[in-house]
């Protein structure tokens, strides 16, 4: 049975240290985050650390940890902060990473993803003030350095534990392969082994080159299309968290909106066993790349049943079924009214992709970037392997507003920056992130640690108190707004919670 979707996105940003030959991205990322945390304050900010009590990234959805698989390390010694908007800001694998708070719909995910960009921008400005004059830190929202090194933008969706994982594998794989036609951020050249940029001068996605398996636990090597990490950060009897690692980090809000919005809907269709047929690609890993290398998005690919289908055809069918689902069952489990808008934009984008993808230069990242690079290429008479085009590609994702090429392209937005500025500090109303963020706003000195599913309070002489939050849709403004207003002290809150 479909459950309301709780959704979050985690983005690992690229980081560059300019003005010095020394390169220590871990130290640079720590400096960036500390500078943000200490900005606008006299003296260091109260530090609310991350609580690793319940982290188990080695647990596998399939109920076992395969021999030789390597679960990601948990790096406790690095900066790891929880923000008043309910987000997590930390150093992960030599990158600064921001995880949005839990949201209930694609609109709010875009809002908090934009808030995360604004946090990164403010961090760069704050870092410049503590660095020597000639040095600066620059943050990039992309997924590849063009030299074979990739870093991720992961999505997380809460799904019903009762849904057979094999159903998720089958249908979600088809969606992940084919949704690339609107989720791609575009990339000059190719990083998959055995191919040259003569063969693939430009491709739809940043990430497709880095996937080598269909299903698996890894996230840093031999990356799988379906990641099996089984760590729900919620009641494990009731929920799974589907950890999606195939997506690109998008500059375009429309791309993020469709990426998250369509995936939330498809997952509800899977939970309710609503899809009448399966789309099984003959070679899924190859299909990921073929779709990414096909700028027409119309190339038919071999299916396991011997037929051929294009990414666009599969997406049309997913859209048709999604419309039918919403007509019959409503939007309760797929993001409310936002889902209706997602369906309309999805249809518009598929129609334009079918007609002429270049019509979407003001909507989708890969098209916006392609048109820009193509125009530059013509004006300067350069080839696709020219360093200038690669530089433009990277600079498209430069988050410094005056250097960011994406900013200059007038691409459509979903949210206002004024709202995103508020969302830098304030949590969403309708998930447990509300409770986390509001407690951190009110009593930062009395919260020693927090994580997705609990908070640890220190209220003086007594032992530390842990408040569990195993239900992601509880702890909302509707549930605890009045309670928080009534409490002057954290001790009072704990007493009223009966903790």
């Amino acid at each position, binding site marked *: 049975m479909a459950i309301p979707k709780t959704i979050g996105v985690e983005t*690992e940003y*690229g*980081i*560059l240290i300019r003005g010095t030959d020394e*390169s220590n*991205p871990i130290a640079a990322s720590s400096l960036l985050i500390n500078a943000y945390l200490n900005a606008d304050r006299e003296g260091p900010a109260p530090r609310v650390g991350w609580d690793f009590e319940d982290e188990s990234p080695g647990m596998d959805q399939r109920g076992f940890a395969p021999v030789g698989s390597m679960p*990601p390390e948990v790096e406790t010694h690095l900066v790891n902060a929880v923000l008043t908007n309910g987000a997590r800001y930390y150093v*992960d*694998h*030599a*990158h600064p990473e921001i995880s949005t708070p839990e949201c209930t719909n694609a609109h709010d995910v875009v809002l908090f993803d934009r808030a995360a960009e604004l946090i990164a921008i403010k961090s760069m400005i704050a870092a410049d003030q503590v660095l020597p004059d000639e040095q600066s830190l620059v943050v990039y929202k992309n997924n*590849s*350095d*063009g*030299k074979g*090194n*990739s*870093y*991720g933008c*992961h999505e997380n969706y809460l799904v019903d534990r009762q849904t057979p994982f094999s159903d998720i594998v089958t249908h979600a794989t088809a969606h992940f392969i084919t949704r690339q036609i609107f989720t791609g951020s575009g990339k000059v050249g190719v990083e998959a082994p055995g191919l040259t940029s003569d*063969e693939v*001068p430009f491709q739809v996605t940043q990430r497709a080159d880095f996937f080598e398996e269909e299903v698996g636990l890894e*996230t*840093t090597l031999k990356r799988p299309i379906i990641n099996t990490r089984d760590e729900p950060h919620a009641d494990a009897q009731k929920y799974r968290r589907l950890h999606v*690692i195939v997506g690109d980090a998008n500059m375009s809000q429309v791309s993020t909106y469709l990426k998250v919005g369509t995936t939330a809907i498809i997952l509800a269709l899977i939970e309710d066993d609503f899809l009448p047929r399966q789309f099984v690609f003959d070679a899924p890993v190859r299909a990921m790349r*073929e779709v990414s290398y*096909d*700028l*027409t998005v*119309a*190339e*038919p690919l071999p299916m396991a049943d011997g037929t051929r289908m294009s990414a666009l*055809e599969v997406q*049309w*069918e997913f859209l*048709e079924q999604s419309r039918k689902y919403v007509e019959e069952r409503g939007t309760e489990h797929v993001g409310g009214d936002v889902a209706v808008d997602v369906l309309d934009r999805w249809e518009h984008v598929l129609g334009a992709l*079918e007609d*002429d*993808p*270049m019509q979407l230069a003001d909507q989708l990242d890969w098209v916006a970037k*392609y*048109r*820009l690079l*193509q*125009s*530059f290429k013509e*004006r300067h008479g350069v080839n696709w392997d*020219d*360093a*200038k085009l*690669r*530089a*433009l590609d*990277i*600079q498209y994702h430069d988050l410094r507003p*005056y*250097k960011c*090429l994406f900013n*200059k*392209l007038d691409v459509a937005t979903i949210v206002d920056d004024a709202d995103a500025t508020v969302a830098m500090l304030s949590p969403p109303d309708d998930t447990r992130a509300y409770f986390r963020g509001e407690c951190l706003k009110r009593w930062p000195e009395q919260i020693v640690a927090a994580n997705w599913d609990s908070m640890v309070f220190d209220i003086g002489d007594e032992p530390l108190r842990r408040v569990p939050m195993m239900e992601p849709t509880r702890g909302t403004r509707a549930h605890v707004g009045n309670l928080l207003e009534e409490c002057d002290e954290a001790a009072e809150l704990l007493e009223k919670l009966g903790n």
Partner: protein
Amino acid sequence: MAEREQKKRPTPRESQEQIDETPAASEEGEKLKSELDDLLDEIDEVLETNAEDFVKSYIQKGGQ
């Protein structure tokens, strides 16, 4: 929509060239082109000065 009519099925290489050569013939296309021209002027100003060095220096550690 499984029976949706198949468009011409070009190979990726051909298709890329087709897109490359699409002329901006219509009025809207002309307007777009002039906007792009302004944009390219602006971009020439903000583009990293030594593209080759910049691209070489952009090295990241692998992440997730």
